[in-house]
């Protein structure tokens, strides 16, 4: 009897093991997914990859006459105006140029030897940094706070709204006010073409829509704004491809969801905090945007074209755009100090500004998120973007590198 029971147990155990084996095999084998045909909107869902991304700005200062006091200067230009920079007798071009560079670099140092790009808060006021204060200047963007602030008091405070090129009032775009008189932010400058990094695969931005019943008018849609974990997929001529697959970043901090609506083909989102990757000179920073919202036209072919606007924390903006104080390597460790110094000082020299001047302007013009003492801690920042249809998928969490 006991032997019979043993046999039964063995049989039962064998059946259980076999069942588990078959189940596991079936699960492992069934990694085939069913895919649908159709356009960019499938089952009320759509994905997009941003293919063009730049600060929303206004017309060039030279064209609009919006910088009557001239453009901001870099340290060499500033030094060259000092008496000690006067050319000495017999000094050749090379020696003179070298002396200007050295003088400029010296003027970037605090008396204790610290570099002003790393410590802008303790630097003296830079009188050579210009701000775009022309009340008649126009700028691209949307009204973020719902108000139209253009009173004399607003203008005196330097926190006043632009009018957009198409006549929309109340455009909050103080970042443009801070950089609008910088040479590198004019249309032929180098500061507003950082999407080159996106095309080099350094970072990317994805947008997802869900619950879309009608592409023309829908009073409730779900919207996701994500950092991409994959590089932009390009054609042989380096044009961004439509309908490529991208995984969103595995870091929850780089993924935001909100709601919104579609009104006459225009997608309008509710504010949500977002942040994206930003890479400069192989150094990694983040590009945050508080209370970010989208207003973009969605056409029948799936192209999304419009504005992503919000408020960037001033210190963060200074770091990813000018100072790189907290920049990191790809593995998350702090980037070498020498590279951070060279990048911040070098770009200020080349792009035509000073670190401390930009830090001071950003704080002076900040208009969002006041702290307990009433000081504004963020500055309205707007991006103009274009996006094309894409398929968005969850990241492969076991992948070695999910970072863009």
């Amino acid at each position, binding site marked *: 009897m006991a032997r019979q029971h043993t046999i039964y147990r063995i049989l039962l155990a064998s059946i259980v093991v076999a069942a588990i084996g078959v189940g596991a095999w079936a699960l492992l084998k069934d*990694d085939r997914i069913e895919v649908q045909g159709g356009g960019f909107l499938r089952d009320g869902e759509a994905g997009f990859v941003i293919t063009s991304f730049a600060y929303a700005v206004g017309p060039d200062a030279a064209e609009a006459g919006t910088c009557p006091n001239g453009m901001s200067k870099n340290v060499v230009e500033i030094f060259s105006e000092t008496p000690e920079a006067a050319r000495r007798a017999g000094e050749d071009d090379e020696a003179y140029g070298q002396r200007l560079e050295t003088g400029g670099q010296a003027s970037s140092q605090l008396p204790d030897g610290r570099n002003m790009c790393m410590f802008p808060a303790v630097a003296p006021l830079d009188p050579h940094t210009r701000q775009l204060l022309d009340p008649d200047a126009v700028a691209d963007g949307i009204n973020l706070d719902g108000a139209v602030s253009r009173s004399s008091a607003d203008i005196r405070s330097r926190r006043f709204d632009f009018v957009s090129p198409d006549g929309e009032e109340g455009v909050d775009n103080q970042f443009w006010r801070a950089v609008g008189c910088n040479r590198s932010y004019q249309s032929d400058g180098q500061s507003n073409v950082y999407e080159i990094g996106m095309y080099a695969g350094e970072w990317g931005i994805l947008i997802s829509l869900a619950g879309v019943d009608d592409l023309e008018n829908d009073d409730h849609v779900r919207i996701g704004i994500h950092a991409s974990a*994959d590089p932009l997929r390009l054609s*042989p001529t380096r044009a961004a491809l439509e309908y490529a697959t991208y*995984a969103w970043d595995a870091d929850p901090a780089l993924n935001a969801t909100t709601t919104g609506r579609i009104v006459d083909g225009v997608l309008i989102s509710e504010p949500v905090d977002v942040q994206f990757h930003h890479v400069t000179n192989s150094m990694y920073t983040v590009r945050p945007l508080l209370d970010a919202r989208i207003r973009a036209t969605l056409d029948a072919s799936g192209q999304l074209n419009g504005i992503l606007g919000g408020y960037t924390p001033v210190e963060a903006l200074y770091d990813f755009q000018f100072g790189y104080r907290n920049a990191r390597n790809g593995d998350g460790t702090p980037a070498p100090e020498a590279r951070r110094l060279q990048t911040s000082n070098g770009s200020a020299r080349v792009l035509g500004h000073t670190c401390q001047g930009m830090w001071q302007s950003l704080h002076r013009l900040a208009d969002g998120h006041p702290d307990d003492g009433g000081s504004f801690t963020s500055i309205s920042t707007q991006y103009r973007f274009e996006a094309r249809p894409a*398929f968005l998928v969850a990241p492969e969490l076991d992948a070695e590198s999910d970072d863009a």
Partner: protein
Amino acid sequence: MPEESKAPLISIGSRGKRLVVYAVLAILVMVFALAVIDSGEPETTGGPPMVRRLTEEQYRNSISDIFGPDIEIAGRFERPFRAHGLIAVGTGQAGISPFAVEQYEASAQIIAATVLSEEQRASQLDCSPADARQFDVVCASAFLSDKGRMLFRRPLADFEVQHYVGLARNGAEQLGDFHDGLRLSLYAMLVAPDFLFRIERVDPEHPDQLDPFSRAERLSFFLTNAPPDDELLRAAEDGDLDSTRGIRAQADRLIASDRFEGTVRNFFSDMMEFDSFGELAKDPEIYPAFNSDLALDAQEQTLKTIIEHVVENDGDYRDLFTLRDTYLTRALGVVNRTPVPAREGWQPVTFAPDAGRAGIQSHVSFLALHSHPGRSSPTLRGYALRQVFLCQEVPDPPSNVNFTEIEEHVNEANVTARDRLSIHNTEPSCAGCHKVMDPLGLTLESFDGVGTFRTHENGELIDLSGELDGTPYATADGLAEALRDHPETPRCLAQRMYTAAVGRDIEWGERYYLDWLIDEFADDDYSVPDLMRRIATSENFFTVTPPRARRSDTTAGARADTRGSAQGDIS
């Protein structure tokens, strides 16, 4: 069997037990009968023995099998010659250009130098001379006999061994090094016609049959796309390939080998003309997703799909034309407008029934290959469907054809390919062939020139209706079903497979054999491995037309004589 030995078995017990015994005996008798019964294969006269040049893959497989996978092959290979729809058949008609000779020489020099390099020689030679400055005839004979047998796919005759040993001796004496002498002799083998060509020989005792080594060669190249291994050559030496049983055993072994899958891939790559991808270009402004990586992925998608279906799943060949299971990379996902979660490698996918994409003819590999650089082509696609999958010949277009009517309306609003072709087809000289090709290709207009699904062209809804030899349909899915169910579909595959196996077109006397093969293909549920096994183990596979009979054959006489003399010259 003595009567007394049977008695206890019969009288074991009850009637039921006897019935069991009878049943077992009956089954044994049936098995025996099935074993000896005639397969039904019709008698044929076969075709001429062939001289076939090694393909690039066969050359590479040969070097890898004989000397190891790490041996570099430096030379480039000539563009293959295609005949009767297959490169495999073209190998029987291809010559060697001066360029190819140079390349074979370059490869041979590097292979021989590598094999006999100081790093390799210990693993390549089973012997070693006591003094490398002295010529060791025993060691040289052993090495050259062994490698010569594998390279020439037959044992070397004594005079051949003497010839190559003599070459090695002369080289060693002049260069002062035993291994340098072997290197020169090995180089000579590597550029010898006996290696570069598969030279089939008739059995002297049975002039209507290939000799055992030619049988081994046919078996091996057909089932593994590689030369016979040592076991197969030994089977030939031992006479095992003289019997059906011996051939079946070897065929089963080769089909079970790792190389078989690659052989099936190679066949379908050949049949679908993937070598033409080397010349395929697309306008990057019109098809930005197309590049050389995508072209490679597209081919691999189709081959992976075919291998999974016909080899791994042993599926019905005809289902390849309606199959929705396939694999995609992210690059292919762009063209297919499909999400591909797998970041690297291949994502297994199944196209939903309403995705409008079914069968290998809806793959990018077919649609992009048979299109123009800047637009799709119903004509090229229809032509390819007829020729590649149905083995139907469509005449070439007349030399004075006027394409301006087509080109002038390519981007015109509300004009589709059907409209353009209807203008073109008013030419009587064009209409005949276009009526055969276009109804197939126009249905595939649901895919643009690179294979992306679409419903409109130039703003106009595309009319996908068409018909295939009397079967009407309204969608690409309907075309897929019509292709699957077309009687010529399996017939074409069987014909292609057989002609690839023997390296020539079907002979007139083999038409009944082909009918039989197709019937067996159907009985085997259109299993491709079973079809290959049938071919490999059939009598006809090794039957050759004796030279005298070929001379009296008025239909194929001239061609056969030419081949006979070519063989004689080379061998």
